């Protein structure tokens, strides 16, 4: 998030796009509901499913999955057409405005309504006016913006909108991606990515190579970016990747096109899995290393608002398990690198040396202060919101972004759009939530949400088992008739291995960041003949 959770009461309006906030980030969802329902703040919701927040929205736009860029361009078209943009802000703080203006020119409400499958173009105008006239307005998004072949462009469009409204670099505004896992922000910050070192310092940069060789007392760091997850699985099938070390991940469940993932794992010569239970992925492993769960370990994590927080040991470890960092250190030691850490804090002290945005953060400060990166020195208070007065790159870059269709569109053979996501009671591949007794009892199995009209057309009823197929696979799953999904759109949560959504999803990737298009593919739903 560019901004902070504690600024939610400061926002006068919210645009929630591609985020089922009350289910996937429930505590933030409640905070936003509180502002809207009890304090009368304005709310625009854009989502293919009529999520809980849609009920409280001033304007709700039920778009076709994969058409975010069109609707955002539509908002900007109306804003520029009616002269509601932040003219001074654009002039002094941004560049690229002319290109953006030229691009959005054709995105009239009528044109956008057609692409997005909306009946009433006037609602686009109403939403755009509301967002432009109420400030500060905060934009919140989640995987419903990013998990598309056009994910990067979706994010850029969000930034475009907030820049032309002057909502970046101000308290209560911002472009606020809600991070889906407790340390996905930190894992990125720490350089657990194929092309960057900690703090996003670039791999193909000689100066960085030198910096890290010196800091790590190492030689021959590679200048070549590595594989991303989905690329590496393709490389395994091609025979280029021989060994895979999976640490706290469950790609068999979490990656698109499960059949392809399993094919890749089977093609490997050697698979190591380090985890807390025998996951679906660990079943394919050659070696399984038992690690610590979150309540057994010390360390720190960085939340969605860049706040770095200390995790503490609450219970004694089970079995013969070891600290995860100890296991990694042991591997390094046994390969001739004499790393010597006694405790998690020793590692964090090293992190501070090489990660400028974390340099001023200490364990002691984390315990006492609310501290958000960037925090370059121990005297620095941390950063509540980014891009104040000036963007990190200088001028904010506006870019003209065209709407592009998803990789797979419906056709007579696969006539329904499938979208996937999470439920309130479960998390990701279920390794934790499905092994929690109460959560598992509340929602013990998966289902497919089908609109009542579609259910009637398919001749299926609530609770009935159906076959759902795509070009990649087929599953059997119970129907939940629900008014939430748009006509001709079905939704399946991906937590359940018995009815695994990712057997169906497509492994089309965004060309820039390589995110898979989990949120849209073409499927068919068939009644199972009795």
């Amino acid at each position: 998030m560019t901004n902070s959770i504690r600024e939610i009461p400061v926002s006068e309006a919210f645009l929630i796009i591609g985020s089922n906030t009350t289910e996937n980030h429930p505590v933030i969802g409640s905070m936003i509901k509180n502002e809207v329902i009890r304090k009368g703040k304005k709310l625009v919701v854009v989502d293919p499913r009529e999520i809980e927040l849609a009920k409280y929205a001033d304007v709700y736009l039920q778009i076709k999955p994969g058409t975010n860029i069109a609707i955002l361009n539509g908002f900007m078209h109306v804003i520029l057409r009616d002269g509601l943009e932040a003219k001074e802000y654009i002039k002094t703080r941004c560049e690229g405005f002319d290109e953006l203006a030229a691009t959005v020119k054709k995105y009239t409400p009528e044109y956008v309504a057609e692409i997005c499958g909306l009946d009433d173009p006037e609602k686009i105008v109403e939403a755009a006016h509301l967002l432009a006239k109420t400030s500060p307005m905060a934009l919140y998004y989640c995987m419903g913006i990013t998990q598309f072949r056009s994910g990067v462009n979706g994010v850029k469009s969000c930034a475009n909108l907030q820049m032309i409204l002057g909502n970046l670099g101000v308290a209560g505004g911002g472009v606020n991606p809600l991070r889906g896992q407790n340390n996905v922000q930190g894992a990125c910050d720490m350089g657990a990515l194929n092309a960057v070192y900690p703090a996003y310092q670039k791999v193909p940069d000689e100066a960085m190579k030198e910096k890290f060789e010196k800091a790590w007392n190492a030689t021959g760091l590679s200048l070549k970016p590595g594989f991303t997850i989905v690329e590496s699985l393709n490389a395994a099938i091609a025979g280029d990747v021989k060994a895979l070390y999976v640490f706290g991940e469950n790609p068999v469940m979490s990656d698109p096109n499960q059949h392809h993932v399993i094919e890749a794992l089977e093609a490997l010569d050697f698979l190591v899995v380090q985890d807390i239970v025998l996951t679906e992925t660990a079943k394919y492993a050659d070696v399984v290393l038992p690690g610590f769960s979150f309540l057994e370990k010390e360390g720190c994590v960085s939340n969605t608002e860049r706040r770095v927080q200390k995790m503490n040991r609450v219970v004694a470890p089970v079995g013969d398990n070891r600290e995860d960092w100890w296991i990694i250190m042991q591997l390094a030691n046994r390969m001739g690198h004499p790393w010597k850490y006694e405790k998690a804090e020793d590692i964090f002290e090293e992190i501070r040396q090489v990660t400028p945005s974390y340099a001023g953060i200490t364990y002691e400060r984390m315990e006492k202060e609310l501290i958000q990166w960037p925090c370059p020195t121990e005297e620095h208070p941390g950063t509540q919101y980014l891009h104040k007065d000036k963007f990190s790159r200088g001028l904010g870059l506006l870019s003209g972004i065209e709407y592009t269709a998803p990789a797979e569109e419906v056709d007579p053979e696969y006539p329904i759009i499938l979208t996937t996501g999470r439920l309130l009671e479960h998390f990701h591949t279920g390794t934790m939530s499905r092994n929690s007794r109460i959560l598992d009892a509340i929602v013990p199995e998966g289902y497919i949400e089908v609109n009542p009209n579609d259910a009637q057309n398919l001749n299926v009823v609530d609770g009935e088992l159906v076959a759902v197929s795509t070009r990649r696979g087929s599953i059997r799953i119970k129907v939940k008739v629900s008014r939430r999904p748009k006509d001709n759109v079905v939704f399946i949560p991906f937590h359940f291995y018995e009815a695994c959504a990712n057997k169906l999803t497509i492994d089309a990737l965004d060309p820039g960041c390589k995110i898979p298009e989990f949120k849209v593919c073409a499927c068919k739903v068939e009644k199972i003949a009795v």
Partner: protein
Amino acid sequence: MGNGNITLTINGEEVTAQKGQTILEAARGNGIFIPTLCYHQKISKTGACRICVVKINDRMIKTSCTEPVTEGMKVETEDEEIVEIRKGILELLLAEGDHNCLYCDANGDCELQSLCYRYGIEPSGSDFPKNTREIDYDSSYGLKRNENRCILCGRCVKACAEIQVKNVWSFAGRGSHAHLTSDISEKIGDSSCVACGTCVQMCPTGALSFQQVLGKGQAWELTKSSSICIYCGVGCKIDFYTNREGQLVKALGCDDGPNNGHLCVKGRFGFDFVQSDKRLKKPLIRKNGNLEEASWDEALDLVVSKFSGYKEKNGPDSIMSFSSAKCTNEENYLLQKFMRAVIGTNNVDHCARL
């Protein structure tokens, strides 16, 4: 005195308070105790239970949780008359319900119990007419409700309306028939409740409790340690309670975190996987097609010999690693350092995109 400050006298001592504060807030700000039941700093003021009454300017008796401070005001927080009023309220509350502390989750952590203890109130033993109210221990997987322990303070109603913003709880009936209801007279498990548990966390008695707690350890036997929730990226801070056997018992939202004490159903109930039978407890190595238990030395040496072999023969880029967004900064840092500095490849990624 600074701008907006007010001077008043509480129990003969001159104290300062901010304009707009209530007497209760002013007293607490100055370290002076006034008992409360319906009041909670996270929700709007109710003024229902009357236990916080104080005497103002030697004549008026008012609820301190709702009465604003005024310049020169003289407040007495507890004299004989106030004590009698409080005792009367407590006697009525005790008589109206079925407050059996012997088998109650809240025993030792009950605000009604501590006030009865403080003011020396015993159950009257008389045949006070009672309305038997609902006991629902089964309908919800997360929450239990025994309304015979309810004192109608309304904290749960407001917690649901103002914190979770779900409006599941409300009051129904009038006078002695007043009682809690969820949605339109549904059982809590059949209602629109999302099991966030905030109402339980704020209940001053044992009327609302968590399913998994009773029998696992009494309040004074539990140890509290704080950490961060493992699920989404909000990063809620949680106080976890363990019993004398080291078993996890319950999770309460911690006020220091970005969540301000609030939790969702996952943070509240999704922790027992940590102590589930399904946990791995030994390294495993595949032998003859099966994963079999092995020693750490055996497992680590095998991994090292394999990695070294592929590095040598196929080059560093033939080894890939997936790091984890569910693990700490230290662990993620170390894994990417291992891949870059030890293996010699940038083949490291994690589930940020998944």
